[in-house]
Structures are given as structure tokens and as C-alpha cells.
């Protein structure tokens, strides 16, 4: 009798499911396809290895040479490692130049993206603006720098840099950050525009359908909805700005330390020349004029740390944007 209830319970339970094959095997593929797959695998692993090698090398080398004192002392003239100081000014220069460039690129980029995505009339002008942005994205930064020297050496723009014996030098934080903002601008425009276009049209219509104007909809609904894209665009833009060297050397002077134009505390510095971490690395690389590789490695480590932090920030912003959304 005792076995009867057990069989009753056991009877309705379904048979154990057969193990699910998650993907098909490539064994049935043609030989060329299998070689192709193997090649793709190989390349994937190769590039992983390259990335790991670069990061790993500078992690090891950077940690080996990085001293806290390097972050708080300025570059100095000298031949030996102990005499040449640290990279306080270049580090500050990187921060200042990023902030100034983004202060221009972010509002301008958002404005352009909003116009392209939400207004874009007349269509011909939108097309021209679009290809202009694309062209800017494809222009090498050294070309932008060259154009910047022409622009900022104009006497009318002399107030943005130093004037010596009636000649406008055209090198300053203002000049460099103005041209660097053009490097960041296409990233901001592309990302924000993508974010705006990802908003379903029924969300816009829902705002119009309660009597809201297009501008109220853009300001109060669309831009807040695109905020993760704005953050992503800003971070990608900063990444481009802090990685640029050509504009820093040509328009910021690459002078290792700040050299103020006047004695006015802030304005004097911004009108004067300076350097960033990239300029510092360029100078101290084994092939550079300074030739202090240990300093270059330490600076490269700090620079990569900043970039990696930005990347993590982008990931975070993108992940948050996926938390809530419309179908």
C-alpha cells in the first residue's frame, strides 16, 4: 500500500529534459568556413593579447617609476632622473585643457545634435552640417592645429595669447582648447544624436498630444531622456581631447611648465603656454628631446589610468540608460 501513493506522485512528473545543445557544432561546416572561423578566433585572441600587453607593460613600468613626488613637482631642467622633477603642470594642463575644450564642445555638440535630429530644416542645410561634422571628424588634429596657428596669430585674436614685439604668438590654453573642442565635437554630436534618435516617436507625440510645443518637448522630455548619451558623448570627447598631442605641441607650446602671459593669476596662465601629459610623454620618450623614459612611462601610466576611468564611466552611463526605456 505504501508504494501506491509514491507511484501516484511520481506518475505526473515529466521525464527529465534532454540536455539542450546551445549552438550547432562547426564540424558539419565546409572546410573554408571552418578555417575562417579559426582565423576569426585567432585574430580575436591576438588583439586581446596586444591590448593586455600594452596595458600590462605600462602598468608594470608605470608602477615601477611612479613616485608620489612626480605628481606634485614640476618639470625642471637637468640631465639626471633626480634633477628633472615631476609632471604637476602637465597633469594640471591636461585637466584644464579638457575642461575648457569640453566647455565649448559639449553645449555646441548638444545644440547641433538637437537641431540635426529634431529640426533639421531646411534639409539641404542639415545635409551640409552633417557632412561638415563628418569632415571635421576625419581631419587629422595636426591639420586643425596648423589652421589654429593661422587663426590665433591674427592680430584681432591677440587678446587670447601673448604678444611679443607686436607679433601675436598664437599659443595659449585658449587657442589649444578652441581647436581641441573641434576634435571632441564630432563625438558629442554623433553620440547625442544617436541617443535622441533612439527615442521612439510616440514619446514625442505623447508630449505634443498634451499640448506641448516642440521646444518644450525637446527640453523637458527628449534631452533628459538622452542624458546617458550626453554623458557618453562627453566622456568619449574628453578621451579624444586628452589623447591629442599635435594641437598641444603647436598651439599650447609644449613648454613643460606653465608660462603665464601676464601676472593676472588665472587669465595670465590661460593666455600663456603650458603642456599636457601627452606633450610631456612626447618630450621624455626615449626618442624625444628630454629622453627621460622612466618619467615618460610614469606619465603614460597616469594618462592611461585617466582614460580607463573614463571608459568605465561610459560603460556605467550606458548600462544605466538601459535600466528604463520604452519599447
Amino acid at each position, binding site marked *: 500500500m505504501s508504494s501506491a501513493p509514491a507511484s501516484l506522485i511520481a506518475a505526473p512528473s515529466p521525464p527529465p529534459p534532454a540536455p539542450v545543445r546551445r549552438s550547432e557544432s562547426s564540424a558539419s561546416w565546409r572546410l573554408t568556413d571552418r578555417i575562417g572561423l579559426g582565423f576569426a578566433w585567432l585574430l580575436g585572441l591576438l588583439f586581446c593579447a596586444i591590448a593586455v600587453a600594452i596595458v600590462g607593460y605600462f602598468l608594470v613600468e608605470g608602477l615601477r617609476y611612479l613616485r608620489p613626488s612626480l605628481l606634485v613637482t614640476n618639470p625642471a631642467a637637468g640631465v639626471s632622473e633626480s634633477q628633472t622633477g615631476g609632471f604637476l603642470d602637465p597633469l594640471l594642463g591636461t585637466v584644464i585643457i579638457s575642461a575648457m575644450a569640453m566647455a565649448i564642445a559639449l553645449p555646441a555638440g548638444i545644440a547641433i545634435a538637437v537641431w540635426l535630429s529634431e529640426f533639421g530644416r531646411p534639409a539641404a542645410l542639415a545635409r551640409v552640417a552633417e557632412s561638415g561634422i563628418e569632415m571635421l571628424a576625419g581631419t587629422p588634429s595636426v591639420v586643425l592645429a596648423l589652421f589654429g596657428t593661422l587663426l590665433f596669430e591674427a592680430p584681432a585674436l591677440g587678446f587670447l595669447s601673448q604678444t611679443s614685439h607686436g607679433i601675436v604668438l598664437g599659443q595659449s590654453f585658449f587657442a589649444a582648447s578652441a581647436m581641441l573642442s573641434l576634435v571632441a565635437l564630432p563625438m558629442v554630436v554623433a553620440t547625442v544624436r544617436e541617443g535622441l534618435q533612439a527615442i521612439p516617436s510616440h514619446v514625442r507625440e*505623447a508630449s505634443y*498630444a*498634451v*499640448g*506641448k510645443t516642440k521646444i*518644450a518637448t525637446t527640453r*523637458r522630455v527628449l534631452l533628459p*531622456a538622452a542624458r546617458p548619451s550626453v554623458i557618453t558623448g562627453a566622456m568619449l570627447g574628453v578621451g579624444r581631447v586628452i589623447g591629442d598631442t599635435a594641437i598641444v605641441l603647436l598651439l599650447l607650446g609644449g613648454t613643460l611648465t606653465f608660462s603665464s602671459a601676464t601676472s593676472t593669476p588665472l587669465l595670465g596662465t590661460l593666455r600663456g603656454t603650458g603642456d599636457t601629459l601627452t606633450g610631456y610623454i612626447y618630450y621624455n620618450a626615449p626618442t624625444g628631446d628630454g629622453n627621460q623614459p622612466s618619467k615618460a612611462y610614469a606619465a603614460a601610466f597616469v594618462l592611461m589610468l585617466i582614460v580607463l576611468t573614463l571608459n568605465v564611466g561610459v560603460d556605467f552611463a550606458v548600462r544605466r540608460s538601459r535600466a*528604463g526605456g520604452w*519599447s
Partner: protein
Amino acid sequence: MELRKPPPVRRLTGNEGYAPLREAHPWPAPDTAAPEPPGVPESNGNGHHPGPAFVGVSRPARAVPIAIDRMQVEDLSVAYGAKQAVQSVSLPIRQGEVLALIGPSGCGKTTLLRSLNRLTELTRGASSSGRITLDGVDIASMEPTALRRRVTMVFQQPNPFPMSVFDNVAYVLREQAKRRPKREAVRGAVQEALARAGLLDEVADNLDHPALRLSGGQQQRLCIARALAASPEVLLLDEPCSALDPQSTKLIEDLIGRLREDVAVVIVTHNLQQAYRIADYVAFMYLGEMVEYASAQKMFGSPGEQRTREYVSGAFG
């Protein structure tokens, strides 16, 4: 033309054609509904019920309030480029009644709905002729934003704005080109709108939570609250339940039944059972034309047109 075979889903009580439906279902459906045929499962009240449609579902008996004429559509035609979407449609929209627009996909019912608050104008290449009046005034002469505050709309997909529950409703209360009212100044109006949409009890403690964290059904009721916050005369609903589960659908259908007393409700629905449950008047559209406009009783009991009869019985759609 008689149908050769009644389709399985919306089969009637017997094989005698359409007449038994009317007999089995006197209107408005009283509690003493005709006995269900054997084997018909109890309806769970949702729109996706696989059993016979109009038999197990009893339409809630409601006292029909006095209808007030709100909008009048006169000879409306809408075209997108060369494609004619709506062809000379005329019908009244009355407060106190729920008007359901039914018809197969692409028949122009959503276009008709969007014409009522001039949302069609946002579509490039759209052109229209005819006249629509709201309380006697031609809507073409009205400022679109002013019109859309009086004729608000809820969409197929729940689309709360990316802000808090409170701000979603407060956003609508803020008049154009005016300073943003203080939070406390609009609190009462926000809560009233949420209460009218039957959402207040669920969100009272979470007014500052992001609206996109609500469930789909709650989001849609928030969208209804948002549409009601402008105190509209007409509420347009474009398949508001098609993305929702049965429970949420039921909540919204009950809500629509209550709302019709202070606002004219026009609902587009693909779901005949839903139209049967909630509509007082039904317009059947097919290929851009309005084939028939009649009371729900007539439409589902003895439609005048052959095409209506075929659609309502499930012969096509």
C-alpha cells in the same frame, strides 16, 4: 451571402446564424444573461480569451449618462501623399459615451483618431479635407497646442516621460510660456489626475520614483492620468491595452467606463471583445471608409452592413 462556416474563435451559440446573438444577449446585458451553451469556458474577462467572444462575457450594466455633443467630424478625408487613408468620414463624438473605432489593420482608424487633435499634421506629406469641430469651433482655426490640451491622447505603448511620477503629470499642468508652478501649487491637481486614472493609491508613497520603473499597466494608467491632467473634453485612446496583460486591461477598461461621464472617449481597438465590453457606439472602418456607425447593441447584434457582419463575426480581420 451566408457564411459557409462560422469561424472557430468568435463562434456564436449555435449554427443558426446571427440572430441568436441578439436573443441570447439582450441589451444592455442584464444579470439574467442567457444560459451559456455547454462546454463554453468561463471567460476571464480579458481580450485574449480564446473561447466564444460574445457569449461568456457579460457587458457590465451601466447607467448611460446624458450624452453631450463634443466633436463633429464632417466629410473628413486624410491622405498620406497619394495614399488615401481616410475617405469622407462623418460621425459625432459625444461626452457620456465611449466611441470605439474598429476595423482591420491599415483601415484608417488610427489616422481618424489622430486627425481629431491634428497629430496627423506631424506626418510629412499628410493632407486632409473636410471639417472637424470641437464644441462648434473648427479645429483647423485653433492653435494646435491649445487644441491638444482639450483633446488629449494615450498611445499604444506606455510612454511615461523620463521623470518622476509626479513630474509626469505636473509637466502637463504647466502652461506654455509660464513660469513653472511651485510643486505644492500643483500637488492637488496632480493627485486628482492620478486618482481619476485609478493610480493614486498605488503610487501615493512613491510620487518621486522614476515613472519608467512602474509596471506596464501602471505606466499606461499614468499616461491616462497625464492625458486627464489637462482637463480635456475629449480623450483619445489608441489601442491602449494592446501591450498590457489581462489584469491591467481590465483595470483600464473599468476606468474608461467611469471616465466617459466627464469626458468624451474615443478608443481605437483591434480587439472586438474589448469594443463589445466597453463601447456605447462603434464605428467600423474598412479600407479608409467608415462602413457603419451604430450603437454597440446594433453593431454586435444585427449590423446593417454585410461587411460589418463578416468582420464582427470574424470572417476577416
